[in-house]
């Protein structure tokens, strides 16, 4: 029997909320699939669209950007700029026919270990049936 497809996910987590939240998931020993590799950034506002395109280009099957809830940004409003920028990226990627599941955004606070766990579980569940992302991927 062939091995099940395991999507590769890159997650850009802001240091103060989402990264802390995912740490909390760890501290609380919640289990979630190991498909996601976190990259800690200072703020979701620092995630350039280039990072997302590049991750997909370099073979990510899915990309997650996660930051603080509106109003909770450690940098006051970085996530608000992110929200606007990422909305455009999402629309653009869907417009060129990339599966919407492949790029997702979430707000995860430092207290929401459970939410983070759930998001990763869902993400993996949604990406598995799609198979490998080849559209923007540079053939190796």
């Amino acid at each position: 029997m062939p091995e099940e497809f395991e999507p590769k996910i890159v997650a850009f987590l802001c240091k103060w909320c989402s990264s802390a939240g995912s740490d909390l998931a760890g501290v609380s020993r919640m289990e979630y699939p190991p498909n996601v590799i976190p990259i800690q950034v200072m703020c979701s506002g620092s995630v350039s669209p280039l990072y997302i395109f590049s991750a997909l280009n370099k073979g990510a099957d899915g990309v997650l950007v996660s930051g603080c809830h509106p109003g909770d940004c450690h940098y006051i409003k970085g996530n608000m700029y992110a929200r606007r920028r990422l909305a455009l990226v999402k629309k653009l990627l869907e417009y060129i026919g990339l599966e919407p599941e492949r790029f997702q955004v979430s707000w995860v606070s430092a207290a929401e270990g459970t939410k983070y766990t759930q998001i990763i579980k869902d993400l993996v569940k949604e990406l598995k049936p799609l198979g490998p992302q080849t559209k923007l991927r540079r053939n190796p």
Partner: protein
Amino acid sequence: MVNIDNLKEEVKKLIVDGKVKYIIGYEKGRNGLMSNPIFIRKPEDVEKLVWDHSCVYNLAKFLVDEKRRKAREKQPDTKPVGVIVKGCDSRAIVVLLQEKFITRNDVYIIGLSCEKTGVVDERKLTKKLKQKIPEKIEAGEKDTFIITAADGKIEIPAEEILATRCLECKANFPVIYDVLFGEKTNRNVENPYKTLENIESLPQEGKWKFWEEQLSRCIRCYACRSACPMCYCDECVVDTINFAVTADTTAEEKAAKIKWLEKSPLSSENFVYHLVRAIHLAGRCVDCGECERVCPVHIPLRLLNKKLEKEAKELFGYEVGMDPSLPSLISCFKDEDPQDFIR
């Protein structure tokens, strides 16, 4: 109705009075119908000026060259450059002002209103005319064009050969100018995003198939960004060169140049290039259609930028190129910006 003689008069006056460094306008094409850019310094050249429906170029692009040239000059001439603009071109100038690339004193804006019509799409025209070689084009009665070819005149309904962007233009007349010719009249546009529907209505895989076909043709001649007045960066982020190097650039800085994409025109790399370009033009593209016009392999690039123009309007109520004093689309936000896409 724009009177060409008044235009010439104004231009001549500006040059004779030494009000401007030179004037960027349109002249009769060397071959074929379509006009060319002309840079007028001497009064006697003013006679070459033309204004008709073949004046497709967005001459604002040449303000970028001018700035570069100025930067190289020892004692630059600080007089403004005169530039002839249509509605869309004027919006480009607004964005350049918005982004402080130029100041209002750098440019003397001679605005020409398209007055309910616009410029022709050369491709549509050649298709329509088959083998005939057009010599002259004029606006006819009730929204038509009258083409004069070797063997007489033909009248064609405007929407058949008008550039699609003109059919979807939000302002037929300049939004900023020092002197304006023609009336501020708008063509009535029922749906400014009509062409998008063809793609938006496709299922996801259909969208992909469409864009894959289109973008795999790209030969990366970069004419799209070269023709774009908004692509004024000295060095495009997707270039792996280190163009902005000086004597004091450290080896680290040189090494830190990122290879966001490879030089090979693979579909994946083409996509990254065009995605980056599209997102970088979000809230900046004025829909002058130059990228699409110049593309030698006919990629409908306008459809990428137009999509984000639409989203900017619908999601954030942002309209491009209307007011130089406003912040850019992505350098501001509203508390009520939509976030239904966020988990």
